[in-house]
């Protein structure tokens, strides 16, 4: 019987940042996956569409994320084959993922991920935006803005200060880019290649990867060893 197989993650994805905006939910992450401290894979898509109404972003062990995508594929296929005019919305998928993650944790065999689930679905009160997150121990909650990994420490304070209810897409992208830039500067496992994805009632779009402009022109970087006394 499997017990006490608390594994170590091998290939890990970095932070994912997401937030609600006027038309839906926007999600962003970098496209890197590290093998320990080596930046091994630089073109990894860590945000995927789920069904018609949701996006999932995963950080943590990438192979577990792929497995979760497979579970979700089975789930959405079965849902699609019912063909009854109804389809699983982000809230339902979030609940499903919570069950999966929590049950695995209870078997001491967790899926080593922090997942961000966002989407828009028509509800009784019109189009309802949904954004939630689940992590490897099964902690789950719903919020207006989510960040995983280092984003929790660096992006969340920015989002708490500057997020507003009715941001347009452009404003949302600017705010997210601000967070991504901070992570790029300060998180050693992030790379300068990002993907932004958005989901609205019309559907989801995952934009092609792009790089942000960084500024390294500080005087202190000119001659870094100037003030150093010298090694021994």
């Amino acid at each position: 019987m499997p017990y006490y197989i608390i594994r170590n993650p091998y290939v890990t994805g970095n932070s994912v940042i997401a937030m609600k905006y006027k038309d839906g939910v926007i999600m962003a992450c970098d496209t890197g996956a590290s093998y320990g401290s080596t930046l091994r894979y630089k073109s990894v898509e860590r945000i995927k569409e789920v069904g018609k109404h949701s996006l999932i972003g995963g950080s943590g062990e990438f192979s577990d994320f792929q497995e979760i995508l497979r579970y979700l594929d089975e789930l959405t296929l079965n849902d699609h084959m019912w063909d009854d005019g109804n389809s699983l919305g982000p809230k339902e998928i979030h609940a499903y993922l919570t069950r999966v993650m929590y049950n695995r944790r209870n078997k001491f065999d967790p899926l080593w991920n922090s997942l961000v689930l966002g989407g828009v679905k028509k509800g009784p009160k019109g189009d309802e935006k949904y954004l939630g997150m689940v992590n490897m121990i099964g902690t789950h909650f719903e919020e207006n803005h989510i960040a995983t990994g280092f984003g929790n420490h660096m992006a969340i304070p920015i989002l708490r200060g500057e997020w507003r209810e009715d941001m347009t897409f452009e404003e949302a992208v600017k705010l997210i880019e601000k967070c991504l830039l901070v992570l790029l500067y300060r998180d050693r496992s992030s790379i300068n290649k990002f993907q932004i994805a958005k989901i609205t009632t019309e559907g989801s779009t995952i934009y092609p990867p792009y790089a942000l402009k960084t500024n390294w022109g500080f005087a202190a970087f000119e001659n870094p060893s100037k003030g150093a006394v010298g090694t021994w």
Partner: protein
Amino acid sequence: MILAGSNRRLHSVHRNSGLAVAGLAADGRQIVSRAKSEAANYEKVYGEPMPVKELADRVASYVHLCTLYWWLRPFGCGVILGGYDRDGPQLYMIEPSGLSYKYFGAALGKGRQAAKTEIEKLKLSELTCREGIVEVAKIIYGVHDEAKDKSFELELSWVCEESNRQHEKVPSDLLEQAK
């Protein structure tokens, strides 16, 4: 008195194939359920959608199984399986005996003799899917005997280039046109 959409006889088995059931509806559901699990399992193990030939084989074996033991009764329904894979679109019909053949045109049920004659009159190699659905709808309406049979609801689904090789219900506007 039929509630539209309540008695589905066309089922999706996977993204690229579907099953039409003729006969005992409950038996049909069993076959569909088995086909779905076979197709899902194949994709899980082999990483690619199940080829239609393979699926037809599995369904036929399953149906045939129920003719082998005295304590099992045969399925009270036949099934038409249509799908699109790497070899293009394919049509199979599986009868309650477990007999399964690949067809260009197939018909099951009470009016199958008349329907088969009508299908044979069509030039199938030149028919596009769009034209095909009109023809098929015509045949179903033609075979339906106003006096003897109960009223019915037409269900149409297709797998073709237009539907992106996915099995799905024919879009409602085309359905209306066909009627």
